[in-house]
């Protein structure tokens, strides 16, 4: 497969009378777009939509973040950007795609907590645009178009979930139509058709998503992957958004759709393909399998694909908490036992100073090298802010039934779990290793 990505970088995002992109300024007609999204919402599960703009450096806290999507459009080639959502599930990843690199479309809503299990309920996710928590999220550096939604009462979880996701994707498509005919600022070509030097080391990437039911699902070509058998993806399919997130449970552990289409390991390996290494492909899998038997089965089948790809080495990452570490570590163990070097990257625990309790929920002796993306047990004080976007309160405590608390005040959080993407599980983030 060969994919050309055309990149547009915007300089500003404003509301105005038209939908246009001129001199890097993206103008959106707020009323028109809000009305479009409400009209298209099947079964009217969304009561109200208010669009909001949040920019890098704003003294603003974004709350209730569910998923974040990228504005992209398929200009040439099969399928759509984010195939299988409002479009046929055709194999994407070849031809040309145009993308706005620094625009994030964020779906924000309070979804119901009542009757949810102890773990799998839609928690409140925070993005701070300034202050000490800002670097926890890549979206403190993007122009953010917020879809602040209020849902009608008494719809089902499945309906809320579909409505929220479809609104975000429709909004992204609506904007991305603008750039279909325009000339990108920059282009990048990813060519996996041309043979590469056979002496280059062959590297694969295993990415394990979370999929445990509504509000913690991931979609591959438009369908959730509860029963997935680990499968092969061309790196360019990932770049075209074949993986879409519907995971709202632990904010810090989420890998939103925006990142799924820009996975650091995929991008980095693809950029070095044919030069530093031979990137033989992506193995896509789900973690959190329910029993040891099912974990072993998934790990065996994923490892078998890595072996079939002829990989000498493999990177492994996973979405979600400790349960999923076991699926990944079993995969690592099998690969290593077959002589395939395997390196995972993961968040760690370790308490505030890094030495308390356990570091990882699970590990195996074969995991000789583990890349840390940082501890999630760092107490962080977030300051009072001038403005709150996405909603007007925070729901942080299940034990109170999610009693709304003020969102704009200073507060200290013992752990970073409420910060959107804060555990850097995709490898996106701003942390660096420091010897001490």
């Amino acid at each position: 497969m060969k994919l050309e990505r055309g990149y547009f970088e915007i300089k500003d995002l404003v509301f105005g009378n038209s939908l246009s992109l001129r001199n890097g300024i993206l103008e959106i007609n707020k009323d028109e777009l809000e009305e479009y999204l409400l009209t298209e919402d099947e079964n009217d599960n969304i009561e109200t939509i208010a669009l909001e703009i949040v920019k890098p450096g704003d003294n603003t806290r974004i709350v209730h973040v569910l998923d974040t999507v990228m504005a992209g459009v398929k200009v040439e080639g099969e399928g759509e950007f984010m195939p299988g959502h409002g479009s046929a599930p055709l194999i994407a990843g070849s031809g040309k795609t145009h993308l706005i690199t620094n625009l994030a479309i964020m779906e924000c809503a309070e979804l119901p907590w009542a009757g949810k299990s102890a773990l799998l309920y839609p928690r409140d996710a925070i993005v701070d645009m300034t202050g000490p928590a800002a670097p926890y999220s890549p979206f403190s550096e993007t122009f953010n178009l917020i879809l602040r939604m209020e849902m009608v009462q008494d719809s089902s979880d499945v309906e809320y979930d579909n409505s929220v996701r479809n609104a975000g994707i429709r909004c992204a498509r609506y904007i991305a139509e603008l750039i279909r005919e325009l000339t990108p600022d920059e282009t990048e070509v990813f060519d996996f058709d041309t043979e590469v030097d056979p002496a280059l080391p062959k590297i694969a990437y295993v990415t394990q998503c979370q999929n445990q039911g509504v509000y913690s699902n991931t979609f591959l070509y438009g369908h959730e992957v509860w029963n997935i058998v680990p499968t092969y993806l061309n790196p360019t399919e990932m770049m075209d958004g074949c993986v879409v997130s519907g995971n709202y449970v632990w904010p810090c552990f989420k890998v939103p759709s925006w990142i799924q289409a820009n996975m650091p390991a995929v991008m980095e390996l693809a950029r070095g393909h044919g030069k530093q290494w031979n990137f033989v492909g992506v193995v896509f899998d789900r973690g959190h399998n329910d029993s040891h038997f099912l974990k072993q089965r998934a790990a065996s089948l994923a490892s078998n694909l890595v072996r079939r790809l002829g990989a000498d080495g493999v990177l492994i990452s996973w979405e979600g908490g400790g349960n999923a570490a076991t699926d990944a570590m079993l995969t690592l163990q099998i690969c290593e036992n077959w002589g395939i070097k395997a390196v995972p990257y993961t968040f760690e625990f370790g308490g505030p100073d890094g030495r308390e309790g356990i570091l990882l929920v699970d590990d195996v002796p074969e995991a000789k090298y583990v890349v840390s993306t940082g501890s999630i047990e760092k107490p962080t004080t977030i300051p009072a802010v001038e403005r709150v976007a996405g909603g007007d309160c925070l729901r942080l405590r299940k034990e109170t039934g999610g009693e709304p608390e003020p969102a704009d005040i200073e507060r200290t959080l013992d752990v970073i779990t409420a910060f959107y993407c804060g555990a850097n599980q995709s490898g996106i983030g701003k942390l660096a290793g420091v010897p001490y």
Partner: protein
Amino acid sequence: MQKEAERAGIPSALITAIPSVASSVGVSRIITGGGIPYPVGDPTLPAEREKEFRRRLVEKALEAVCSDVDGPTVFNVSIA
């Protein structure tokens, strides 16, 4: 908890869905249970068979408690 009980001189065993985690933290006697949402059973089985499976898990755990072990040891039962 199992390790602390053991340290206090009380032989004990852990029924868990994820024996690899129990092994890596040094639990001595580990019985592989049904699944994460149901460690001491398996609701996907017909009721009678599930009851038998639960019985086997508990009996295996009692057998484990009565066994001398050297380091983390996994005991498995067959699904009834």
